[in-house]
Every structure is written in structure tokens, then in C-alpha cells.
């Protein structure tokens, strides 16, 4: 009972927040709606006993990704009216994607995996089952290859981003901190006898 109530609260809120993202006039508010949406999605994860995923969602998306989003949005001078200019032009493409997604959702919902009986069968596991441990075991044994491939792709992306933005400038004087720290008195000073 109380579980269903919370599910509907979180689900409704995330839909409202999702609508808020695209309807907000101020881009800053769009970002905030998206953060709110993530919180509600995390709430849904908690309802499914997947507290690890819920917390990671907040930690990674809200705590890091959205901060950078907000950071960028803060710097931009965005004109919403200008952004809306191409609305009709993009409507057919967007509408088509939405339509395909909807068909996929309906197909998934009616496939039987999410039927009432299947969901009832899963139920809640006991308190001794720690889903962090379970996810770890699966991720590092059965799905190790996929995990490593994903890690390598991320590493390549990371290096790529650094390479794209790395510029060495010759006209700027950089300090070499270890050299600065290692300087001894003898390197810089010498005692000169001044003739009087």
C-alpha cells in the first residue's frame, strides 16, 4: 500500500520534472528540473531495493555531471526564443523518435517480463542480501569482459578529451614546482667580498 503510494509519488514527480526540463523558460531552471528528475529516479531505485544504484545515480549524475552542466549553462547567454525558432522544423523527426520509443515501451510492457505475476515472483529479498556485494560479484566475474571494455572506452574518451584541449604555449612562462622546491641557498646566492 504505502509502497505503491511512494511509487506513484516518485513516478509522477519524475514525469513532471521531465516535462519541466523542456518547458522551463530559463535554462538554469531546466537544469534544476533535471536534477529533481534524477532524485526521483533514485527514489524509484530505492523502491526496488537497489540502493547502490540509487546512490550512485545521485553521486555521479547529480553530484558531478549536473554540476558541470550547470557550470556550462551559467556561462552561456541562451536565448530561449531563438532556441524555439526551429521547433516546427524538427517536430517531424522528434515526433517520429517519440513514436518509435512509445511502441518499444508498449512492446516491452506487454512482453510478459513485467507482468504482475513475474513481478510478484521477485518480491523483496531479505535484509542479508546486500546488493552492492551482489552487483560487485556479477560485474567482476560474469561480466568482467564487458566491464573492462567499457573501462577502456572511457579511458580513451578521457585521453581524447585531454588531447583535444591540450595546448602548449611557448610565450608563457611556466613554473616547475619541483625545481622551485628543490632550490638551495647555494644555487641562488653567493657571497661577494665588496672592496671598500
Amino acid at each position, binding site marked *: 500500500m504505502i509502497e505503491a503510494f511512494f511509487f506513484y509519488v516518485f513516478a509522477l514527480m519524475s514525469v513532471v520534472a521531465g516535462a519541466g526540463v523542456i518547458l522551463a523558460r*530559463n535554462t538554469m531552471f531546466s537544469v534544476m528540473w533535471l536534477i529533481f528528475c534524477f532524485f526521483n529516479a533514485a527514489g524509484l531505485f530505492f523502491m526496488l531495493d537497489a*540502493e547502490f544504484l540509487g546512490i550512485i545515480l*545521485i*553521486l555521479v549524475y547529480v*553530484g*558531478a555531471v549536473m*554540476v558541470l552542466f*550547470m*557550470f556550462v549553462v551559467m556561462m552561456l547567454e541562451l536565448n530561449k526564443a531563438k532556441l524555439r525558432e526551429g521547433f516546427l522544423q524538427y517536430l517531424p523527426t522528434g515526433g517520429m523518435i517519440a513514436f518509435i520509443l512509445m511502441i518499444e515501451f508498449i512492446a516491452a510492457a506487454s512482453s510478459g517480463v513485467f507482468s504482475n505475476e513475474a513481478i510478484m515472483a521477485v518480491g523483496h529479498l531479505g535484509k542479508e542480501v546486500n546488493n*552492492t556485494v551482489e552487483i560487485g560479484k556479477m560485474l567482476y566475474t560474469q561480466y568482467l569482459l564487458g566491464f573492462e571494455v567499457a573501462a577502456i572506452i572511457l579511458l580513451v574518451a578521457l585521453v581524447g578529451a585531454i588531447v583535444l584541449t591540450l595546448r602548449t604555449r611557448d610565450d608563457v612562462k611556466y613554473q616547475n614546482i619541483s625545481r622551485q622546491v628543490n632550490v638551495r641557498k647555494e644555487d641562488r646566492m653567493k657571497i661577494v667580498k665588496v672592496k671598500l
Partner: protein
Amino acid sequence: MDGLDIAVTTLLWVLEILAIAVPVALSVAYITYAERRVIGFMQARKGCNRVGPHGLLQPLADGLKLFLKETIIPAKANKFLFVAAPVIALTPALIAFAVVPFGETRLFGLWDTPHVMSIAHLNVGILYVMAISSLAVYGVLLAGWASNSKYALLGAVRATCQMVSYEIAMGFSLVCVLMLAGTMDLSGIVHAQEGGFWHWYIIPLFPMFLVYFISGCAETNRTPFDLVEGDAELVAGHIVEYSGMWFATFSLAEYAALILISLMTSILFLGGWYAPFPFLDFIPGTFWLLGKAAFFIFVFIWFRATFPRYRYDQMMRLGWKVFLPWTLAWIAVIGIFTYTPGLQDLIAFYQPWR
């Protein structure tokens, strides 16, 4: 569950929350007093000593002053976010305390097994604290943006870079703790350090302890990492347009975060509520935990009186080029020790999950 049950449970929750939130607010007030006295002592002057005996009523006078001051909202500010930002800053600082275990109690022999004193017993407690404290940056960011002032905006931009950078080093230093404790539950981590100071994780993880504590200092924007509000160049950074109660809310959030970092450092590296020697166990664990946290709060104040502010590029360098490689190397060291047959025995002492 009938109506009475729900009412009693709700009442208990409210009491539990108040039992943590009220002491936090009070200790924030007296940390500001301690800070002024300690820094005064270190700089060979008196500090506040006028209001009440030894100036002990100074925090109350300050609170009253801030409460009665007018709150000024700049005309061009985004009013909603300007007012919301201090609240957004304070909320994560307070709700992170929900999982902090303050000790173990049998309630004077009423219970047979000791219960951990925390509002919520999460088995991902350490991640919860990480996630919630990473939200603190929003308060700063929104305050800077909503103020519509160049200094505030610059402060917010600096805060974002700083917090995001140091969070990574902080997270990796926690990974080392997790590799030893084998659990993400905060009370489980404390239990893993039971039995005297030679079991504490500060010994195998000393570099990580330094990284965690210094990163915590950077996360809470304390000196020497207070570039966010660097008063010489940015006036006061994101709080430049705030006055009265809203200003006080920001400092409340900052000091609450300070207390949290001190508590977390004690829990993760200094054995939480355990005494350094088992024969000192007759002193309740909560006193030990709070004593350790109080020491770290003192160290934060000590830092403030001692160190000059970092230059911005040096601070970023420290985060990315010093701490991050340190933590990654230490994770590798712990991992190698854990799974190499000869070295296993050395570290098994600290790994109760074996």
C-alpha cells in the same frame, strides 16, 4: 500498522532528527566562538571576551544580530534562486548526519545487544555521505549565479572547479578504506577497527588519511583553500550579496560540513567510537568519537591561523597532480598486498572480512 503506531514512529523520528540537528546548530555557534578565541590566542591577541564571562555569550549575540538584520535582495537578482540557495546549501550539510553512527549503546543494560546510534542504518552509508556532501556545491553555485554579481559568479565558478576536483581524490581515498573494511556500512567500518589504536586505519592508510582530511578542507572551502570567498580578490565570493539570516545560513552550512568531515575522518581512520587502548573502554564511545572530531575541528582552525591561501593553479595542481596519483597508487598497493601470497599476512590484520 494502525494510526497510533504511525504517530509514535513519526514522533520518534522527529526526536531523533532533533537530537542531532539541535546539537549541530549549537556546536556551530560555539565553533565560531572557539575559532575566534583560538586564532586570537595563536595571533597573540584576546579574541572576543566582552559579551558574558570570557565572551561565552558572543555567539548568541552574533546570532541575534544576524537575525535582526535586514535581508537585502539585489534588484537584478533571480529572487527565487537567491532565496533558495542558502537553503539548498544547508540541507545536504544537515541530512548527511542521518547515517553518522555516534556510538553504540545498550541503553543502560535495557537491550541485550548493542545498538548503533544513527538515525538511518544504511548499508551504503559511506556512499550516501559522499553523494549528499557532493550536493553542497549547488548552494554555492546557485548563490553565485542568482546574485547577478561578477564577484559572486567568479566565486561560484571557482567553487565548482574546486569541489569537483577534490571530490575525486576524496572518493579514491575512501576506496582504500573500503578495501580494508570490506563493507560500505559506516558502523561496519568502525567495527573493523575494534581493539586499540594499532587496529585503526590511520596506520596502513596514513597517506590516504592526509588526502582525505586535506580534501575535506578543500571541500568545505576552509583556509588555505578558501579561494571561493577569497576576500582579497573576490570580496566574499558567492556570499557577497547576502546579509542577515541568509548569510548566517551559509556559515551554518559551512560549519556543519566541517563537523561532518571531522566526524567522518574519525570514523574512517581513527576507529570511530573506540578508545585508543582497550582498558579505556569505560569511557562511553560517544565521548571518544566527539573528542576525536573536536580535535579535527581544532586542526581546521589551526590550519586557518597558520597557512596562507593557495594560488588557484597551485590548488588545482595539488588536487589533480598530487592527490589523485597518490590515491590511485595506494589503491594499487592495497590491492597487490591483498592478493599476493607473501604479503597477504601483513595486511590481513586490518581486513576482518578474510
